[in-house]
């Protein structure tokens, strides 16, 4: 005889084992008697429902309905909820850091955990208890993630509604209470997650695209690609897509076609490129998202050693002619289009190790390779520097992973706008971010993310730590590392996976990871702290206060100088195991208190 189904409701911190029902995140809140949420206007609040045990996956399904949330004078429509079925992915082993003993596996290690979130509309609005194809051994529990967006024009106050679930002949009915405070999350994301990726890492998720050599001109490609930007946008992140490969190869439509040569080189037509990318810069590509049509804050240009100037002309006068001619036109075109809310990043990604160009243009290890940047400086100034192109903004971006402290002391500091540093850049100088900010520079910290096998606290601690270090943004060098089509496990334990391809579910869109929700929630907290106390790099007291709220002395957040450190061996979220969920709740409470 089947056991009776139970419904449990949790906050957004929990992960429940689909086989045993075990709670994998100590300290998460289980809502008994009703779901309690809080948030500001323009923020998301989330909870989870877990049903089980059931005797056999796929035999039952649940109907889930949520009512509008009604306040004293206003209401929040039920349409502001997003219902996402939890797909389970094997977490692998915890991350072992170089030079450290293998950590004791936590409860989430070596088992299936909820990660990929699938819109419930895929299942006609009903939650299968055991998603078809998930094939979790011994699955007896099924989770549902519930996102609630609080529209920016919501009146502050208390709201209430209900969530009803019917499954297996049983009914469950829970009240949902929401407290909305006056704080409004700004359109400017502030400290954000730059979800770095390389073109064309999207098409492999869709066979119809992969098999079409002309795919970039199809509506399907544009629709799929745009969804990645939109999902990132709604999570207060930036989809940061480098449009050329290490060889300098640019896929069709990722750069405008050029014609002519030398000083007469020019863009032949902006039509295709504008159609592909213009919507990101005027915000129209984000219409219909929760956060609305806000232009993307940063964008990688297709500029490389071989575009717009031909590398065959390197070190010849024609190279400078071609660069200045085309990039001057680009600046003029962007100005005419009014694309003034996006910062356009020039980033030379070439590296010696790929045997295509003879310099490391980023992650420089031999300082003489900076000669490339000094040559580009001469092209940059007078063509794309801020004064020349105002009100459009171009930034000279460099991955100074190994040599940031040298670059800051050299003539490089006179023109670099964005320093992308390794996660240990602050080991030698805790005030690095503040110093860069004082120079008007952007400090971005790059590494890998936390492992799925580690607690969600690791994923949450990672951006918070980088903010305390004074970062203006952070990135993973790859955010869409996909595994097999069955999506049963991920390479690198999910450290490099925050978005999934929806093709497997018949969707031409990106799907978020549960861990991306964790990052989003931390970014919302940081957004409040910045709103109240100023940008992290500008305000060390703000960062110190956040450290205090977390119950961890400020000095202990920073990495120790390590002479054996290679620079390319990041240690994301080192120290997360010292945190508890009470620390994160205390921090969130503090952020709300400061912005109430």
């Amino acid at each position, binding site marked *: 005889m089947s056991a009776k189904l139970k419904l449990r409701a949790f906050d957004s911190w929990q992960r429940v084992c689909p086989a045993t029902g075990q709670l994998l995140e100590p300290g998460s809140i289980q809502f008994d008697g009703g779901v309690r949420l809080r948030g500001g206007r323009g923020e998301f609040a989330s909870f989870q429902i877990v049903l089980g045990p059931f005797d056999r996956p796929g035999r039952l399904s649940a109907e889930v309905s949520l009512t509008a949330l009604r306040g004293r004078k206003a209401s929040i429509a039920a349409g502001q909820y997003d219902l996402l079925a939890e797909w389970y992915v094997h977490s692998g082993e915890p991350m072992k850091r170089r030079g450290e003993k293998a950590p004791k596996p936590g409860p989430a290690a070596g088992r299936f955990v909820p990660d990929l979130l699938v819109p419930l509309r895929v299942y006609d609005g009903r939650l299968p208890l055991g998603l078809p194809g998930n094939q979790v051994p011994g699955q007896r529990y099924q989770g549902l993630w519930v996102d609630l967006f609080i529209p920016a024009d919501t009146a502050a106050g208390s709201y209430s509604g209900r969530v009803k679930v019917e499954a297996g002949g049983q009914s469950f009915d829970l009240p949902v209470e929401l407290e909305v405070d006056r704080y409004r999350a700004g359109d400017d994301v502030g400290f954000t997650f730059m979800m770095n990726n390389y073109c064309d890492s999207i098409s492999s998720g869709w066979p119809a695209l992969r*098999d079409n050599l002309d795919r970039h001109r199809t509506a399907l490609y544009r629709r799929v690609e745009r969804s990645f930007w939109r999902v990132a946008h709604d999570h207060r992140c930036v989809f940061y897509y480098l449009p050329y490969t290490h060889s300098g190869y640019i896929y069709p439509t990722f750069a405008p*076609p050029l*014609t002519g040569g030398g000083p007469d080189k020019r863009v032949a037509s902006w*039509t295709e490129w504008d159609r592909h990318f213009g919507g990101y810069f005027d915000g129209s590509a984000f219409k219909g998202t929760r956060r609305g049509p806000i232009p993307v804050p940063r964008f990688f240009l297709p500029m490389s050693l071989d575009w717009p100037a031909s590398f*065959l002309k390197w*070190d010849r006068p024609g190279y400078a002619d071609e660069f200045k001619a085309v990039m001057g036109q680009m600046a003029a075109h962007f100005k005419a289009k009014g694309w003034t809310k996006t910062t356009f990043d020039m980033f030379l990604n070439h590296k010696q190790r790929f045997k295509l160009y003879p310099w490391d243009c980023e992650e420089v290890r031999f300082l003489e390779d900076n000669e490339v940047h000094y040559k580009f400086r001469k092209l940059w100034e007078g063509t794309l520097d801020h004064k020349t192109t105002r009100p459009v903004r171009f930034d000279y971006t460099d991955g100074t992973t190994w040599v940031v402290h040298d670059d800051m002391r050299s003539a490089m500091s006179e023109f670099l706008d964005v320093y992308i540093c390794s996660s240990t850049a602050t080991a030698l100088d805790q005030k690095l971010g503040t110093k860069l900010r004082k120079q008007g520079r952007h400090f971005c910290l790059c590494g890998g993310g936390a492992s799925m096998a580690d607690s969600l606290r690791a994923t949450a601690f990672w951006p918070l730590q980088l903010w305390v270090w004074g970062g203006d943004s952070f990135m993973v060098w790859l955010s869409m590392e996909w595994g097999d089509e069955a999506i049963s496990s991920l390479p690198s334990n999910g450290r490099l996976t925050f978005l999934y391809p929806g093709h497997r579910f018949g969707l031409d869109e990106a799907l978020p990871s549960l861990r991306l929700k964790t990052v989003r929630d931390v970014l919302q907290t940081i957004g409040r702290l910045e709103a109240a106390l100023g940008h992290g790099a500008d305000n060390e007291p703000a960062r110190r206060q956040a450290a205090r709220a977390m119950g961890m002395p400020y000095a202990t957040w920073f990495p120790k100088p390590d002479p054996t450190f290679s620079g390319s061996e990041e240690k994301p979220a080192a120290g997360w195991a010292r945190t508890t969920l009470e620390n994160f709740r205390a921090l969130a409470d503090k952020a709300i208190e400061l912005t109430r």
Partner: protein
Amino acid sequence: MPARTARKSTSKSKARPASARPTQLAALSSRELIDRLAEVARIGALFIEGEDCENLLVPEARQWTDPDDINFDAKVAVGVKKTLLRIERIERFPYHAIIWRRRPDDPDRGEIMLAGSMSSSYSLGKKVNPPLLPELRRVFETGRPAVRRGRNEDWESVTQFRYGHVWLMAHDSLLRAGRRLISHFSPIRDSRDKVVAALELTCVGTDS
């Protein structure tokens, strides 16, 4: 669409689907392609100095074994790179030019030294120098050119598709349709006529 044709499309003022644009590639049999690559190799070798291939890396870097430890002598390498890019323009169908050497620490392995517009499909990524292909061995040991025709299953799986070999992405559906990659290997000699490097010219064949 072959990558080189794609690049050409960015310099044309009239945008039309690449698939509708005629290419000389389709008109050539694989045998004819091989003959043409052989002629390109003959011409190209005239412009590549063997000593430059030996001096691509700074002296201390020539023996390094860690694939992340690379340090080119940019002055030499820029010249060779430009020559490879020009070699890729001798014929009008798309192909790529790559220079190989034998690993000094392990002569049974080859090492890609420098590529023109795209790297070799025989690259196993930056971490590994592949075992010396029989065709490359023939070039280094006999000084005679050799041709290799490979199948798609020789290469990385589709999951590596995204950021492995770019031109495999560009050609992936051709390869999965049974077309073969053609690589023509020829010797590069130094001033003492010793074979010090090999030039690979590679393209997608037009028949299975």
